[in-house]
Structure formats: C-alpha cells, structure tokens
C-alpha cells in the first residue's frame, strides 16, 4: 500500500511534469527521413495485442483480440464477443549519415478497431489502421547563387495514409477460414519546402498537399488443424492486389506575403503493388505459438525511379513467439500470472527502396506483453520493437529506432455470463 501511494503521489506527477515541460521545449519536428520517400514509411506491424510478435502473425488465430494481418483470423473470435481496440505508437530514433547525427521522436494514436463475433462461423471487424506515415524536417545549407553566402533549405513533411476497413472472416468446416477485407485507403501528405536565412521567417514556402484515396479488397485464408494432441498447426495466406491510389495535388507557393501560385494540379496515381503474405504457426499445449511469416511485395513492376531512388521488390521475414503461461483462455483466469501473455519476434525486411543501388534493409527485435484484468473486460498490450534500418554509405542513412506499441482492449461478451475457472 505504501508503495502504491509513493508511485501515485510523487513519481507520477513528477514524471508528468517533466514530460509536459519537455513538450514545451520540443520545437524541432520529428524527422524520419525515409518517410520522405513515396507515400511515407509503410507500417508492417499489425499492432494490437500482436505488436510484440512483429511480422510473424498472419497464421495466428486468437479468440480474444484482433489480428489485422489476415481477415480470415476474425472468425477465430470467441462466440458472442465484441471488442474495441485502441492503439498508440511511440517512436524514438537516432539517425546517422556520414558525420551527421540526429534524433527524433513521435507519439500518436494510431489505430482503432472494433471486432464482433456475429455467429459461430462469422467474425467481423471495422476500424481505422495506419498504412503509412510521413514525418520529416530536414534542414540543409544551400549556396546563394552569385554570392559566397548560404541559406537554409528546409524540407518538412507530415501526414500519411490510413485505411478504414471492414473485414470478415468466415469459418468453413473445422479447419478452414476464409477472409475478405474491404479497405478504403485515404490520407493526405503535406510536404513543404522552405528557403530561409532565419528558419522561423522563410522567404519562400511551397506547400504540396497530396490527397490519396482508393477502395480495394484484400483476401485471406487460414488453414488450421491439430497435428498431435499437444500440437496445432495453422497456415495463413493473405493477398492484396495492386492498387492505384488516386492522387489529387494542390501546390501553393508563397513568397513573403505574395502568393505566387495556388493551383490544383492534374490528378495522378500512386500505385501500391501486389502483396503476398504467407505464414505458418505451430502451437504447443495451447500455450506457446511460433509463427513464421514471409511477405513479398512486387514493386519492380512499377518501374518507378526518381533521382537516386528506385523501387525494387520487397521481401520481409518475421518470426514471432507468443506464450500464454496460463493457457489461451486468459481473460477468465483468476491468477495474475494466468492473465498474462508474452511475445517476442525477429523481423527482417529488405525494403522496396533502393537508394544509390543499395537496397534499404531493416532488422528489428520485438518484445511484448499482454495483461487482462480480472473481470476479463479490459486488457492492455505493450509491444516494444528495437531495430536498425538503412545502410551506411554515401548519402544513406542508418536509423536506429525503438517503437512502443500500446493497445487498450475493451471486451464485452453479450448474451452470456462469464465463467471463471
């Protein structure tokens, strides 16, 4: 009891005050330079309660939380369950390129999803999930032509893509689930270029706003079967076809108080490629799940090349572990140690970005934990991903990052009573 008062009475207010104080000092915008390319950095982590497993999740079937990596998994929700999930993501990164170093952090609410088990063979989910994120502020020197003076070029970007989805998983028989998910991808990217002697007083600001939208479908399959009494296996497949995001652009250029241009440019398309995802998972004693995922994105077909950046096929591998000390029916366990779950993962991604003929790679380790309250109507998931992205070389960037995923899940079982055992 004394410890509890100490935490709440002294440490937390100090922590909060420190945080607020630092918030006031933070004037430089979070900058993740790779997000400046294309439509931002794609999010491969499905977040939610699976955030600690990294990419290795597509074959995972869970009755108590959502798996957005594969719509076929929605049919695994336990009967009569409705749940809401709210996720937030924090990111801290240290950047290095040549002799330059930088540090950035960001935090935002990133995901909201609702899942309902409609009947014993149909699970459905709607929600808003992040597709890509753009956030950068880069300040560079530039020579003033005709003089020996220099001036600041400031590149800023923010925004990203989200998908509003409606996914359905239908269980067919005892071993197969098929899923289809409708995704309305939308978002805006705000990219600014400023030129200024004094950053706070730019001489010229150009702002390009790109509005993207698209309606498409993704398809999933899960095949699951017991292999032995203690060992279950599931296979997950997911396919998302090539999508043309319709892009509308506006460009405004303001010099001092003069608006030099404020125009709506011709619509264009940004194409997302075919994505194939396959995973296989083994579960021992309903306690330990091992999942291996392979993701392939066919960017080569798009033949996009801009400056020193070209798009190439992307490959990702994910190995995820999930351990339920008290078995999978965690919401209804009495003991704390039985209402916990732990996760771990290793992820490797050879990115679709190739810069100066060098493909950007990303290697990360994930850890996660989940905790259910005793009535089983509230659970908390925490995922930590520590990784390194990029390749050192001329003009390339090495980004060491730490991501924190937080998920709050509210559960409700309708038309039934809880049974604790």
């Amino acid at each position, binding site marked *: 009891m004394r410890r509890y008062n100490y935490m709440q009475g002294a440490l937390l207010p100090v922590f909060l005050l420190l945080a607020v104080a630092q918030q006031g000092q933070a*004037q430089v915008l979070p900058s993740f330079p790779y997000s400046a390319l294309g439509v931002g950095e794609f999010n491969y982590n499905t977040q939610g309660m699976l955030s600690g497993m990294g990419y290795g999740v597509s074959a995972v079937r869970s009755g108590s939380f959502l798996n957005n990596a594969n719509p076929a998994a929605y049919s695994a929700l336990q009967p009569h369950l409705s749940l809401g999930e709210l996720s937030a993501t924090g990111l801290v990164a240290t950047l290095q390129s040549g002799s330059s170093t930088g*540090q950035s952090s960001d935090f935002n609410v990133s995901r909201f999803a609702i899942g309902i088990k409609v009947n014993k063979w149909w699970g459905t989910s709607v929600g808003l999930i992040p597709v890509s994120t753009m956030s950068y502020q*880069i300040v560079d020197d530039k020579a003033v032509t005709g003089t020996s003076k220099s001036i600041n*070029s400031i590149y800023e970007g923010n925004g990203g893509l989200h998908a509003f989805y409606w996914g359905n998983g239908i269980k067919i028989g005892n071993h197969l689930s098929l899923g289809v998910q409708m995704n309305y991808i939308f978002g805006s990217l705000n990219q600014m*270029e400023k030129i200024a002697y004094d950053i706070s007083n730019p001489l010229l600001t150009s702002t390009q706003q790109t509005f993207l939208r698209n309606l498409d479908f993704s398809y999933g399959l899960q095949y699951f079967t017991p292999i032995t009494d203690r060992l279950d296996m599931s296979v997950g497949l997911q396919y998302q076809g090539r999508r043309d995001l319709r892009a509308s652009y506006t460009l405004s250029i303001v010099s001092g108080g003069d608006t030099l241009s404020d125009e709506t440019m011709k619509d264009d398309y940004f194409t997302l490629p075919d994505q194939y995802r396959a995973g296989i998972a083994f579960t021992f004693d309903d306690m330990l799940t091992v999942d291996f995922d392979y993701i392939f994105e066919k960017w080569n077909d798009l033949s996009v090349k801009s400056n020193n950046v070209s798009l190439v096929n992307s490959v990702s591998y994910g190995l995820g572990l999930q351990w339920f000390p008290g078995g999978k029916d965690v919401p209804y366990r009495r003991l704390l140690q039985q209402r916990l779950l732990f996760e771990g993962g290793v992820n490797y991604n050879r990115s679709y970005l190739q810069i100066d003929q060098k493909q950007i790679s990303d290697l990360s380790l994930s850890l996660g934990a989940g905790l259910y*309250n005793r009535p089983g109507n509230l659970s908390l998931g925490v995922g930590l991903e520590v990784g390194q992205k990029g390749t050192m070389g001329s003009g390339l*960037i090495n980004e060491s990052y730490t991501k924190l995923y937080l998920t709050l899940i509210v559960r409700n079982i309708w038309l039934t009573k809880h049974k604790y055992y």
Partner: protein
Amino acid sequence: MSAFQYPRYIVPLILSVCLWISACKNVESDIGSSFFQGHANVLEVDTMTVKMETVYLDSIPTSSTATILLGSYQDPVYGTVSASSYLQLGAPDDRSIPASAVYDSLCFMLRPNRYFLGDTTREVPIAIYPLSELIDPGETGAEYNTTRFSRGSAALGSWTGRIYPGRTDSISIRLSDLLGRTLLSAIIDNPDNLSTDNLFANYYLKGLMLESTGGKALLGFHAGDSSGFMRLHYHLATDVKTSLHTDFSIADPVLQFNHISTDRSGTLFGSLGSDQKAMNADVTGYRSVLQPMSNMAIRISFPYLRNLQHLGRYVDILSAGLTLHPEAGTYTSDIPLPPAVALCITQDYYHVLDTVIGSGGVAYGNLITDYSYHNTSYTYDLSSYLISEMQVKSDYDKTSLLLLPPLPDYNTTFRKLVIDNQSAKSSGITLSVQLVTYDTK
C-alpha cells in the same frame, strides 16, 4: 486478496511514458537532404543591364525661389552654363516724400546667399538692364530657366569686384541717376502713378535684368526683403546730414526668376536638346550627367528586367539595391554633389508618376561622400519598384527612373552628378537583385 488492481497505476504510468516519448527532444539535422533536389533557390544577380541616358529637360521653373543666380561656369563635362536673373520691382514702400527732398543716388542691393560654383578669386562684373517688357508668368503661373524677356540695350548700372560668398555681406550697385531723379520726382509729384506695383511697372520700370558676363563663377544671392531690391537715397534740403531712402522691392516672388543658358558645344553632349532629348551614355563617353538647371537629367531603366522571370517557373524579387558611384574627379569639396537625389518613376521623358519610397519616405540616396578613395555612393532600395515593374505586361507600361535632386537644390544650384555606365572602365552603377525562384521540375 489476490485481485490485481493494475489499472490504478499502470495506466497513469503508461500515459506518462507516452508523454515522455512524445516530449523527447528532436534534434535538427540535414540527414535526408540528398533525397531532395530542392525546387526553391535564392540567387543574387548583379549583372543585369542598366540602361543609362542623359535626357534633356525642356524647362524647369526658376521663379519663386528667392534666389538670384548670376555668372557663368565652364564645366569640363557638359559645357558652359550662364545665369542671369529677371525681376520686377514694386512700388516704393514710402510714397510720402516731401517736395524738399533732394536726390542722392539709386542703388541695387545684393546680398550673397553663400552659394557659388567656380573661381571666386576673380572679379565679378555685374550689369543691370531695364526690361522693355513686363514679366508675364502666363497661364502656368511660373517662369522657367529657358524664359527670356527683352531688355534695353543700355545698362542702368554695373559693378565689378570680388565677391567672397562666405564673407561678403552685401554689394550695392549704383544705378542710373536719371532713373533715380525720375523716380524721386514721380514720388513727389505724381504719387498716384506709382500707388500700386502694376502702375509703377507700367509707368516707370517694367523690370530689371541682372547679368554677369566674363566671370568664372556662378554666384547666388538672396532675393527678398533684405536683398534684390532697389534703394533710392535722398535727403531733405533742410537737413543735409540725415540720409533718407525708400526701397523698391520685388513685387511678387513669381516675378523673379533665373534664366539659365548652357552651351554644350564642343562636349559629347553637344547634340542634346529639344531635337535629341535623350543620349545613351554609350555615345557620351559612357557617362551621363544630372544637372537640372542645364536641362540635363539622368534616366535609368532596366530593359531586361522581365527576363528574370525566366530564371524559374515562379520568381519573386526579395530585395533590390541600386548603388550609384559618382565619377571620380567630377566632384570635390568645392564642387559638391547634390546631397540628395530622388528617383522619379517616369513614363516618356518627364511624366512623373511617382517617386521611389524608402523606409523613411522618399528615398534620396543616403549620400556617403569619400573624397580620398572615391567610395562615394548613393544607395537605394528598389525592391518595391522592381517588383511592380516586373509585373508590367507590355512595353508601353514600362517606366524609367529619372534622377532628380529635390527642391531647392533642383532649381537654385548647379550641383551636378556624373555617373559612368556599365560599359565604362569603372562602372558607376550597380544593381543587385536578390531573387527567390521556384521550379516545379
């Protein structure tokens, strides 16, 4: 009681962690700059062509300046300039002179105003002639430096002597006794004939012309109550020792003006005149001259200004500075520069639309004088002017800048400004334009 009440402190703790992450300091860096080509640029252009001409000013008003200019000066650049002054006197201030008055003398009084140009060590001859016609300001209500009125052939009086502008208090030029006696008689016998300025001018003296020829300097004199008037000295027969006088002052400031003539023959500006109103500096020794009293002014324009728009898809002028460096050797402490020169925005030759404005009003160049190293300069901020000029759509609407000194220098002194153009060995004009450009490619 094994209930685990984690929400009571775990949730605040996690919220604090979230806040802490969001508050982590972001460090500014250039990492990632290689991903951008950069569409915006700032550049400074100081090689833009500035067209410079000497233009002929038809006339400038010289009446109502309270200044009498006399003499001549030979300028090595633009020729010889001569000044003479016309004025019309009014009725005497005292018209109740008794019949016992005895005429003594008639004089014209001049008091130097300290302005001079040229060699003042030489003797200055001044002659005063009667006008044979009345000074008529006409519809414009002003007289100009080109205006002349006919005069009598015989001088009413003359004077020769040295004038030290800084020391000489006044000079008195003795005029014709015949005129003096006539005026005294008129005051005594017919005061009604000179009861008004017009009557006096019509009956007795239409006006005077003051002229100084043969000297080597131009000199300025006050024209007002204490200078530039005629004084009739007399005494009463009953009191020989007491000298009395009555004054004939300038009737109206408009009726006093200076005529200026300039002989540019033998100089590169010889053909400048009403037939050739503009001479490019390229044909006048790569120099242009500002000297309004001699009908000369400098006009500058920027014929290729709009070409700046081709430097990018969008171009905006951030700042523009014009610096004028007077030609070395054309100014000294004795031949000073105009202390202020305004830039008048003109169309055609003289149609002044506006004046270039600086931070504190009309821009006069903030003259910095350096006689030792010839770093003398006038500087102007042309940002606003060039921004509006660049937006001009047709050549017809283009404007030029006419360099003119403000009043009273404009029409009471002979201060000149000589500027070498960009083709000269040492250019006297620099236009520095800082632009921001944006290319969408």
